């Protein structure tokens, strides 16, 4: 870099300096564009007046949004995914939170084995998780269906819940619980009125994560679903002939709902910090 003082740097000089100073911001902006291209595409084509296969743009319509169940099987598969998601989330969040508290607040034998057992499902490719569960169900002559999907989803969600809740418990200020004890709260009261409310955002985050993992899972579900349909499975199966625009409506709606939940959560937590 020259340190010579030039009275008025030329426009090209200034713009090249601006460019090099903001290079990383430009790069990041391009990365965001890349991330959002398929989302924008999905959203745009949810307004396509497409008929059955949604491959080419044929004109703008609001019909798909007015009648998201218009295409056969879309809403049935979404309803299935929602049910499976809710049941799996509740079970996995409870089981995972219990494990997280045991790990971060108690000493017990077999800690290393426990940690390994939590870590391994996250380090195993989904095909293997799906295939091994199916192998077991086949060996036991159990027909895969709704409940085998729930079992599988709870299984792979538990680890993620444990990791999320554990991080929150670890970040707690121990002095708060100490203060409660000093004010004559017993162990149970301290947990009920101090620890649990403080860990709650972590548990809520873990539940959201579990739900989105369950709702979006395809590979493990595909192995263990039999003839039961879920939303991702519906998209995969109909991809060959072109998915109906109603699927884009569902996908875009999910996007906006999740975005609103996250933004509201952030605003609420920020206001709590202020007060």
């Amino acid at each position, binding site marked *: 870099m020259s340190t010579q003082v030039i009275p008025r740097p030329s426009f090209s000089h200034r713009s090249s300096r601006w460019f090099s100073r903001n290079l*990383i911001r430009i790069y990041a902006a391009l990365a965001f564009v890349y*991330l959002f291209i398929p989302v924008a*595409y999905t959203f745009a084509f949810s307004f396509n007046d497409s008929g059955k296969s949604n491959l080419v743009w044929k004109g703008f319509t609001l019909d798909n949004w007015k009648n998201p169940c218009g295409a056969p099987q879309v809403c049935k598969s979404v309803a299935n995914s929602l049910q499976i998601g809710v049941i799996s989330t509740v079970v996995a969040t409870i089981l995972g939170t219990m494990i997280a508290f*045991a790990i971060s607040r108690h000493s017990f034998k077999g800690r290393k084995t426990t940690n*390994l057992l939590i870590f391994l499902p996250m380090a195993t490719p989904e095909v293997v998780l799906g295939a091994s569960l199916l192998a077991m169900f086949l060996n036991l002559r159990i027909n895969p269906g709704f409940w085998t999907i729930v079992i599988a989803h709870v299984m792979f969600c538990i680890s993620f819940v444990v990791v999320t809740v554990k991080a929150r418990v670890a970040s707690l200020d121990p002095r708060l619980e100490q203060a409660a004890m000093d004010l004559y709260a017993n162990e149970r009261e301290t947990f009920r009125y101090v620890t649990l409310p403080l860990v709650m955002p972590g548990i809520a985050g873990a539940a959201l994560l579990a739900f989105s993992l369950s709702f979006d899972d395809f590979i493990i579900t595909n192995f263990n679903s039999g003839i039961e349909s879920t939303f991702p499975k519906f998209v995969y199966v109909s991809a060959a002939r072109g998915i109906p625009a109603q699927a884009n409506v569902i996908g875009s709606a999910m996007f906006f709902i999740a975005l609103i939940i996250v933004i509201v959560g952030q605003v609420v937590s920020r206001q709590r910090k202020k007060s």
Partner: protein
Amino acid sequence: MAFLHGATKSKSSGGSTVKKRSLTPYLLLAPGLIWLITFFVIPIFSLASTSTMVRPQGSQIGTYVQELRFANYVDAFLANQEQYVRSFLYAGIATILALAISYPLAYMIAFKAGRYRNILLVLVVAPFFTSFLLRTVAWSQILGDEGPVVTTLKLLPFFDDSIRLTATPFAVVSGLTYNFLPFMTLPLYASLERIDPRTLEASGDLYASGFTTFRKVTVPLSMPGVVAGTLLTFIPAAGDYVNAALLGNPSTKMIGNVIESRFFAVVDYPTAAALSFTLMATILILVTLYIRKSGTDELV
């Protein structure tokens, strides 16, 4: 003595973390761990058992009996070597690309975003609220033969009309890169964000240039994030079959596609099981070596 007694007492209550040997931790652990053992550990053994089964001659499709035929592994591997190697190759390239895209992105969010940090983090995750499959289908249409990219490229003089983007290795690898990007960005961000800015200033005070600081201070301190991110990208990418199925063609098939079709289309459970088992073993070995080499054992 009274003094000593008081000291130990205050020590035991001072931690406030309730750490005493009791039944409680085991009761808290039991339901979740039993679930994981029943539906994760036992199935792995079940898979191992299926992998050495044999179909008796003249029996119905889908009936297999245990004969401990370990040659199944050799047969399965020899028949699918190509897809096997391809899976690791594609996953490796996708991981490197994802790292190249994510590092500057995570760096920018951690150090240059100021008060927009949280919003940008939400934006990194936001695309993943639209279904993974819908986004992959969207890519297949964007890059498809009648899609906007190919149509534009055809207008340019240096591409002839036979140009295709889908049904190529390029499409599969970019699909893999795209789909696992936040798994790379988030751990990178987490480890970059933890760096104390004063260490970077100190480096500058010691006359290190910006680039030297980056290379000698920032990168080493962000290594845990790099390791976590590459693992979280590589593992699911190596086992994925959705991208190859939606964006590829028969010559870009990965091992996941073979496992799926062995299970469902061919009903050849032993081969599928042997392939899954080999895949898992290979990944576990690679991951262990990688973690050893990069010297970060505190991933769990």
